[in-house]
């Protein structure tokens, strides 16, 4: 596992130093070869780990009698799968940027590799402080990548908002780590879990929980920590957005889940966490979906759709069952493929037409037949078209919510995915088909328009590598739904992740893992398919309503709410920090008050 990280860093250093003299194709091939190698390594790790765990103690500091001064890297099926996803998505992103982007002497590639190194390290590390370090590595590379188009005023501003809010989140996490350390004098996740387990959840436990989670909740764009995400996604180069939306944001949720189950599960009662995260997830999903409908800048629209989906993922996690988490994992896989494909199509449009503003692109992209086809497949899949991974994951998570007693859960899942899918479809119908009322681009000063410095100027045909990357991603999203046994594998992976005691026992004392439950419920069901089809149909209706909204007077009723919500998204860094503290206060109240 550490070799995956080390390989990225070594090659990144090489590219950083020699980038100015190497020809472009050499940099591209070197970077792609490295990331494919890492992907392969992660696949091998995933296969070898199976449904077990593998672990190494770095520096050979293996524990004696359950204590160690070292740091362990642990792969269980969930983290190994995420490792594959990270490296695989990066491969597609780099493939896409083969003909794309002024690489500035290899800086772009070096930063991408550091980004991958940070994410891989974060996923495997079994030490709280070490996780924060890799979190910062992922951040540092990401801030620079976001502001990569320095000529674009929105890009640098988005990068700064992202950087400031995320670093502040990381420092607050560090504060929480320090508080925990002061109490138990340990930093490793298994050690922390063992020493915290069965302690009464007092003020220290709750405060450290909220502080540690703040960093990850900022990264995971939970409302009201989410503001940076739209700014950063809207301005980052398309291949970078692929990594942001496809996996980086989800790693925030992974951090929350991993740390809850390994460290806090023994002390903070599950009901407490379930209540807090179901509420936060639902709010995130609704805010994301509503904001998504109101966008005309396509990447910003996709960014809010990511926020909405993060809300759904959070709810799937929050039921705290193997089915819920496993369904979420499948959903994340499917979402990564589909959403990334959409971001890359946005990149193609931006390169071709120098804008991705919905109203300006009205009917302009008619000649892009093939791209349009790919776009609509991806948009419908985002709404939950079976048999994509999004549909399978969604239906498993819905079922888990319903059986946990949240009968409104499936309704929210259907509505939210229909709204985000509908917003994307509406964009496509305007841009590729020229459907709907002819819009007036001058209208509306409430939101960001889609004029942007393109990543690369493209005239003529869309290069093969770009389309290939889109197709590969879509196939990946489809595979997440149709590969036999994937739901079961995900449920097993979730079970491993949730077994904090087993984790500690295995990593610290070499005890063999607990046997898995025989037959998890995670498969396609009739109800799941029907609900997925329903959300797809609803999405088409939402899109139609958006296209011909001027004829639907009753839509105006929602206008004031929309406008107020838009006004909150100010792009002002001070506001973002203020909301962050408000969010922390809400967390303290949600988690802490019931325990008093």
């Amino acid at each position, binding site marked *: 596992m550490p070799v995956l990280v080390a390989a990225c860093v070594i090659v990144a250093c090489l590219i950083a130093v020699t980038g100015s003299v190497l020809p472009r194709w050499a940099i591209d091939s070197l970077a792609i070869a490295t990331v494919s190698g890492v992907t392969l390594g992660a696949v091998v790790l995933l296969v070898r780990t199976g449904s077990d765990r593998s672990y190494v103690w770095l*520096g050979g500091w293996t524990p004696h009698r359950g*204590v160690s001064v070292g740091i362990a890297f642990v792969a269980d099926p969930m983290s190994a799968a995420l490792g594959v996803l990270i490296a695989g998505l990066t491969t597609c992103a780099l493939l896409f940027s083969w003909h794309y982007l002024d690489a500035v002497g290899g800086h772009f590639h070096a*930063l991408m590799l550091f980004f991958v190194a940070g994410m891989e390290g974060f996923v495997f590390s079994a030490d709280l402080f070490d996780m924060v370090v890799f979190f910062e590595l992922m951040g*540092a590379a990401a801030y620079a990548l976001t502001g990569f188009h320095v000529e674009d005023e929105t890009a640098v501003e988005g990068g700064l908002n992202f950087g400031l809010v995320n670093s502040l989140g990381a420092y607050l996490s560090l504060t929480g780590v320090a508080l925990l350390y002061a109490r138990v004098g*340990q930093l490793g996740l298994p050690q922390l879990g063992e020493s915290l387990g069965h302690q009464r959840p007092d003020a220290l436990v709750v405060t450290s929980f909220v502080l540690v989670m703040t960093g990850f909740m900022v990264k995971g764009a939970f409302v009201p920590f989410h503001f940076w995400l739209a700014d950063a996604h809207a301005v980052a180069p398309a291949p970078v957005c692929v990594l942001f939306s496809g996996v980086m944001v989800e790693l925030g949720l992974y951090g929350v889940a991993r740390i809850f189950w390994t460290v806090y599960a023994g002390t903070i009662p599950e009901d407490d966490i379930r209540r807090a995260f179901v509420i936060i997830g639902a709010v995130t999903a609704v805010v994301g979906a509503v904001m998504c409908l109101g966008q005309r800048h396509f990447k910003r629209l996709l960014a809010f759709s990511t926020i909405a989906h993060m809300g759904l993922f959070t709810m799937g996690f929050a039921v705290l069952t193997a089915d819920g988490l496993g369904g979420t994992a499948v959903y994340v896989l499917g979402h990564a493929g589909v959403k990334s494909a959409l971001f890359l199509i946005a990149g193609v449009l931006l390169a071709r037409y120098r804008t991705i503003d919905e109203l300006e692109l009205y009917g302009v992209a008619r000649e892009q037949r093939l791209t349009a086809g790919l776009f609509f497949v991806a948009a419908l899949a985002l709404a939950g078209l079976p048999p994509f991974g999004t549909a399978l994951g969604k239906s498993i998570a819905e079922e888990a919510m319903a059986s946990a007693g949240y009968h409104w859960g499936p309704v929210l899942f259907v509505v939210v995915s229909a709204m985000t899918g509908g917003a994307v479809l509406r964009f496509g119908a305007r841009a590729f088909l020229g459907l709907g009322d002819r819009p007036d681009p001058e209208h509306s000063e409430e939101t960001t328009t889609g004029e942007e410095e393109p990543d690369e100027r493209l005239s003529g045909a869309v290069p093969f590598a770009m389309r290939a990357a889109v197709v590969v991603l879509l196939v990946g999203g489809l595979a997440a739904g149709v590969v036999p046994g994937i739901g079961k594998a995900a449920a097993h992976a979730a079970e491993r992740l949730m077994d904090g005691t087993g984790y500690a026992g295995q990593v610290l004392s070499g005890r063999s893992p607990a046997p898995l439950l025989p037959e998890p419920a995670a498969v396609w069901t009739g109800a799941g398919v029907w609900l997925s089809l329903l959300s797809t149909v609803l999405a088409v209706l939402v899109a139609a309503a958006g296209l011909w909204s001027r004829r639907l007077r009753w839509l105006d009723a929602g206008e004031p709410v929309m406008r107020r919500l838009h006004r909150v998204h100010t792009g002002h860094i001070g506001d973002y920090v203020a909301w962050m503290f408000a969010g922390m206060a809400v967390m303290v109240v949600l988690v802490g008050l019931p325990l008093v």
Partner: protein
Amino acid sequence: MTRPARLIIFLLGGGVVAVAFVLATLDLPHFGSDHHPYRDLSVPAAVQHGTANVVSAVNFDQRAIDTFGEESILIASVVGAAALLRPSREETERRVPDLGRTLESTRLIGYVLLPITLVLGMDVVAHGGTTPGGGFQGGVILATGLHLLYVVGSYPALDRLRPVVPFEIADGAGAASFAVVGLIGLGSTGAFLGNFLPFGQFGQILSTGTVQVLSGVVGVEVVGGMVVLLSSFFEQEIAVRPEDR
């Protein structure tokens, strides 16, 4: 949002968080207490590896992966800052600046201090395993020393002494060698970043196995990184604005 509204939201949120924090500190072991379980493990482990500076032992041996991550952050930021501060299309790269005259006495102090800092910095790097100091501290002192020349007002001198390219190479090579040392450890001890060198006599400069090696590598990287980082800022500061031509 208006300024008062923002302030109110922050004060409400911050107030709740502050109360929680105060309650949490009341649950902590008191300041200056004897409750340090990790230390009780870490000190014997450092002594066993012959490292007299336990902080270095933690940084470069027991928790070396933290430092590896941190060095990667450093070089990633250096690359990032260089990318962000690259001269944009309309800016020409640079000119020789004329920063005016500096008082002779200031200059003298600078020239006297410079070699002292450089020697001090190298000493700090070299003895990281045995006395306070190590790669970061020494590297930072060295980088600071080089920039004393700027305070002295002689940017051209700094420029001559500090052609950026070797420092870029030092930066990259330092970070990469950290990983390579880790991989050698993997090859010879079976664990990434394993301490594969003999530990030697406690308290001696070459007694600490890989601690000293990694400390030196980090020293090289930090000097390189900090110098390149600062030079990106210097370049901006003296860049020719198009209208000035």
